[in-house]
């Protein structure tokens, strides 16, 4: 087995979720690396969209901003934020990858504040396009390292919708039908959501980890799938592409 770090592992797993011909709304960093890796492996026709208006670029290198020139390099269109977000709103965009300071059992995310909103202990950037992508894209995924500070019983602020309060609450809220969190990829495991309760459920565990140690690093009780897979590690080819072509300066995989 090749030697790899957790960032390389998470990006490789994420890339495998993006099937050929699908469309994905991404930000900078790990999500963008995953989309680029998917394009260079099983999904050459993956359509990458950036919220600032870049539509189907041929990314020459990792963008540093979701609006820099690389996000519309040799693209189909250098459009507007409305063009990108309204394509999501109309149901054209299959996947998105998000992250946050906190995540709860229903896949809701906080990227706004720690503490009270009026007098925050810590102020974060806010939604950006995350709430929009999570509201509109068919399947929302999260890529994040896992610990009890991040995986919490109760969010300080619900910035971005997951399954809200579980059950049918997302549907009842008025968000577009058939959308919602799909998979959570951490540095230890892959989770999905139990279809009725919409609670987070472990479906695959990465090499070197156990359910017990995944649970220890989570602030709420995880469900356990009937059959838990062992996550396949990154292949030599995935690692080569990541290190040589996608992120040669290790901006993301060096984190």
């Amino acid at each position, binding site marked *: 087995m090749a030697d790899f770090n957790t960032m390389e592992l998470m990006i490789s797993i994420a890339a495998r979720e993006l099937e050929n011909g699908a469309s994905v709304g991404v930000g*900078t960093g790990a999500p963008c690396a995953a989309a680029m890796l998917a394009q260079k492996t099983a999904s050459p026709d993956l359509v990458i969209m950036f919220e600032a208006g870049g539509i189907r670029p041929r990314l020459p290198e990792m963008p540093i*901003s979701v*609006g820099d*020139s690389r996000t519309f390099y040799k693209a189909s269109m250098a459009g507007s934020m409305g063009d990108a977000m309204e394509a999501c709103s109309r149901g054209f965009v299959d996947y998105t990858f998000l992250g946050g300071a906190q995540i709860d059992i229903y896949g809701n995310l906080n990227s706004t504040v720690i503490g009270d909103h009026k007098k925050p202990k810590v102020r974060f950037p806010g939604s950006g396009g995350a709430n929009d992508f999570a509201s509109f894209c068919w399947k929302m995924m999260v890529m994040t390292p896992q610990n009890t500070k991040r995986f919490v019983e109760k969010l300080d602020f619900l910035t971005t919708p997951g399954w809200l309060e579980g059950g049918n609450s997302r549907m009842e809220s008025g968000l577009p039908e058939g959308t919602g969190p799909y998979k959570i990829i951490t540095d230890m495991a892959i989770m999905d959501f139990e279809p009725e309760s919409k609670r987070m459920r472990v479906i695959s565990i990465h090499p070197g980890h156990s359910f017990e140690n995944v649970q220890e690093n989570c602030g709420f009780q995880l469900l356990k799938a009937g059959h838990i897979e062992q996550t396949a590690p990154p292949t030599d080819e995935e690692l080569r592409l990541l290190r040589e072509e996608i992120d040669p300066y290790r901006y993301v995989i060096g984190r």
Partner: protein
Amino acid sequence: MNTVEAGQGVLFTDPDPDKARQFFRTKNRKMIRKVMELKDAIEKFVHDGDYLAIGGFGANRTPMAACHEIVRQGRKNMGFAGHTATHDMEVLSAGEVYNRLDVAYVIGLEARGLSACSRKYVESGKVEVTEWTNYSLTARLKAAAMGVPFVPTRNVMGTDTFKESASKIVECPYTGKKVVLMPALYPDVSVIHVHECDVYGNARFKGIAVSDIDLANATKRLIITTERLVNHDEIARDPSSTRIPYFLVDAVCEVPFGAYPGTMPYEYFSDEVHLKEWLAVEKDPDEFKAFLQKNIFGCKDHEGYIAVNGGAKKMRDLRAKELLLSREV
């Protein structure tokens, strides 16, 4: 339409389209020369207490020269649209220019990290905050551009982002589904940086538009900073390239490298070394004060700022980076 739920956030601007129409009725329709120095444009059109919006996205095609001039002139108590406001917000926070903030994305500089200065100012209690999202602010500008009081969207429902916004959830009279009404945002004044503009304000830019077309239509007053002035004949030769028509524009300021240290598509890439320097010096108040003196208050204008940061040689390097010239062997 009955309101199902109302956000509790403060609405900093009036969404009434008739009041906006009364204002737009007074704007000059004549194609007159509007060229002036940036310093004069900021003095004339950007006032204390105004609600300000900045074009571009993050540090991309963002009118940084204008942000510096606003700080240099000491504007205060402004409202500000944090529509992926990154380095522009960092500069405006250094001047404590605003005290009302519509948040979509603030404080961060995306992959580069967080601005200690912006964060400290927003956490200080001096700033009133209402929460939105990037698309929510796009929709609000779109409503204003349409001349209507709101447009419906389907984001934010069920979240605290909605609760701390000033949007409202209603039941759609056609489908019975819930939709969110995003109130029109008519900024008092906005600045947009473009590639080319004629002396009358007919402007064109390349690359992504972000929300700048709607912003240009929505804002009451508009300052254009441009990399280059071009002849009106050039605009008339190719009118399908005009993105902003003259009658929206109040001032045209020729500011080469006006988006520096951000990116200007097809012209120059962002100065990542200098942007990192901003983020680093903010952590030490004394160092930051000296840095602002050197880079903003001690500079007469944007030319002065560029001169202390590497001048023409630096701009040539950033152009090579933008064009990926090193790949052409």
